[in-house]
């Protein structure tokens, strides 16, 4: 189990550097066996959070424990039970895939047959067999990510921390990655994965939406989406550009997002629908269809960020 209480971490502030607050007042509890998604844009504080949990970064204040071990006082005990995959490729670029894995096995004391078996198993898992002799630096971004994951799994960790495992990975490899994570989840591992992609967040059993060092919402993807007030419309029309411009002035529309030949509209309630039809008609836009649509995490996230920012501005000005 992972418990984070009122965790803060800032950087700088010395030698006249600007003080940056990377995470501010984070509270979070993750149960064993969860596949938890830490979701947020660049600079939200995901990496900082995972580093603190991995015992390689000290919090400025607050506490965090992993399986009962404190991240400051008991960091080495955490490292025994943890698999950590950094955002950046953390294995040796001058060593081959095999040499890198052997090194990790050396560190974790996996020797002999057990080692060969484990490496086989993991390479099956990640499809890296044919690249065993290749140097780390010669691997593609996606293969490097897979190798990092493989290395993090060598010692059967109870808890896995994966920092943006799919950033910079092609869509096929991304799917494979998520298959692996889902498999680990069903095997009972606790997996915490950070990602900037909302569509990936849907695959977690619980997500925490992070922004500006704080957790805005934390629940199952469906519950998060249900928190969205109002409803979604999907609009198809002959002139989407014009439609978008027109709808910007219509009251009761929180958000407009174009998706290919569809405009997704987040609106206050169903009654806005008639207003939309009327306005578009006046502007000469021909509506092909206007249907209620299920909201996605992306809309939810944008909504929460907007709300969070206005609250924040109010707080600051108050």
């Amino acid at each position, binding site marked *: 189990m992972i418990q984070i209480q009122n965790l803060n971490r800032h*950087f700088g502030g010395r030698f006249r550097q600007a003080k940056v607050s990377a995470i501010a007042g984070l509270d979070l509890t993750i149960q064993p066996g969860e596949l938890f998604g830490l979701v947020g844009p660049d600079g939200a504080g995901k990496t900082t959070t995972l*580093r603190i949990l*991995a*015992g*390689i*970064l*000290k919090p400025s204040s607050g506490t965090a424990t992993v399986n009962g071990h404190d991240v400051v006082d008991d*960091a*080495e005990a955490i*490292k*025994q039970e*943890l698999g*950590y995959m*950094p955002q*950046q*490729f*953390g*294995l*040796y*670029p*001058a*060593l081959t895939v095999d*040499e890198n894995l052997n*090194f*990790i096995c*050396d*560190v*974790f*004391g996996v020797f002999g047959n057990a080692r060969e078996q484990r490496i086989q198993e993991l390479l099956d898992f990640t499809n890296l067999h044919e690249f065993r002799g290749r140097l780390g630096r010669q691997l593609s971004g996606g293969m490097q990510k897979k190798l*990092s994951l493989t*290395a993090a799994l060598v010692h059967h960790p109870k808890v896995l921390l994966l920092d943006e495992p799919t950033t910079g990975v092609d869509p096929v490899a991304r799917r494979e990655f998520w298959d692996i994570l889902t498999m680990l989840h069903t095997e009972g591992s606790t997996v915490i994965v950070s990602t900037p992609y909302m569509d990936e967040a849907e695959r977690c059993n619980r997500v925490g939406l992070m922004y500006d060092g704080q957790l805005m919402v934390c629940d199952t993807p469906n519950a998060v989406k249900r928190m969205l007030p109002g409803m979604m419309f999907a609009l198809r029309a002959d002139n989407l550009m014009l439609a978008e411009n027109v709808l910007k002035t219509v009251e009761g529309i929180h958000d407009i997002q174009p998706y290919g030949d569809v405009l997704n509209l987040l609106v206050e309630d169903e009654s806005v629908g008639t207003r939309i039809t009327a306005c578009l008609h006046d502007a000469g836009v021909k509506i092909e269809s206007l249907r209620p649509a299920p909201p996605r995490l992306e809309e939810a996230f944008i909504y929460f960020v907007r709300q969070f920012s206005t609250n924040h501005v109010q707080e600051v000005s108050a």
Partner: protein
Amino acid sequence: MTNRHMMAIARKEWLHITRDPMTIFLLAIGPVLMLILVSYAMATDVENVPTVIYDLDQSELSGQLADELDATNVLDVQGYVSSEAAYQDKLERRKTKLVVIIEEGFGEQISTLDGLMSLETAKPKFSFVIDGTDPISAETALEAAMKTSEAFVTGQLGAVLDEQQAAGMADDLITLYRLQLESPINTTVENRYNPDLKAIWDLVPAMIAVALVLPGMSISTVIARERSEGTLEALVATPINKHAILLGKSLPYMITSLINVCLMYVVARVVFDVPFRGSLPLYLLLSALYAFATLSIGLLFSILIPSMEAALWASMMFFLFPGVLLSGMFFPVDVFPFLVKIETIELPVVSGVIINRGMFLQGVGARELWWNIVVLLIIALEGFEIAGRLFKKRIA
């Protein structure tokens, strides 16, 4: 546990070293190569040392001697001077390195046998004034000048003796004269800037100590390299023991250092004919201690200095400069007395130079070197201890 971790790191570090051609080159034969290159550069190729002659005799024979001196490879006689002030001036302006003074009466002295049987002071007298700033070429030049002069005098007197023998001089008298011919001249040497010409023997042991800082310099970048390659984050997130990381990283460097010590010992003895007067087992032991001390400091730099370039510069200033100054490679210590003060600074390379010179040339042992041994022990253990304390398994 710690042991296993250490071996894991050592193996990985070894792979790193062997994978990168530059590093393997630098570590495997860098020190030996440095020793050979520097020592050879200093030892050989002494040619055409500018020489002037102050001829007080002005005879035909003194002129012949000047030609003989010029005929050697080592010396290049550039002309005559007519006063002491003139050659002083040339020496000071570095126009000449060697002055050969031929005393008055030289021509006469070597035309008869009279001088040969008399006192040392009555023998043909030569004075040499030499600029010893560059000890190796000074010594070579001086030796050439003495040999040539001696051979010239011996030749001349030998001819006179042959004439006397033909003229019927008694045989036992001839034998007596011939015996005297073995040291026919009386020389005085005035060494201008470097009284007891430091020779190659002095340089080679010092260079061994200096060359052995290369592994220490190399290791000063290892942590910075992990940081810049982004591998430090993954490494510190493993449960690996932090002292094992430091020891494991040192181990391959330690091994290459010891291999180099053996190679350099052989090169010093065989190639440069340097005598070794101490105890070999003690020498190996102290060399290992010295290597450990430089590696400890290198590791400490590695932990303290976040960039590879800065770490390399720091270790260069710390290891290489004092060692090079002390070795006499560029400036003879006797000429610049302040350099002697370096000996009193407790740097590993200083103790290394003192130990190497002492064991090669003076044959001293642990009793005479105790202070330097203590210094190295403190540097090695304390350096490693502080490195271990400062190295945090964290990234910021």
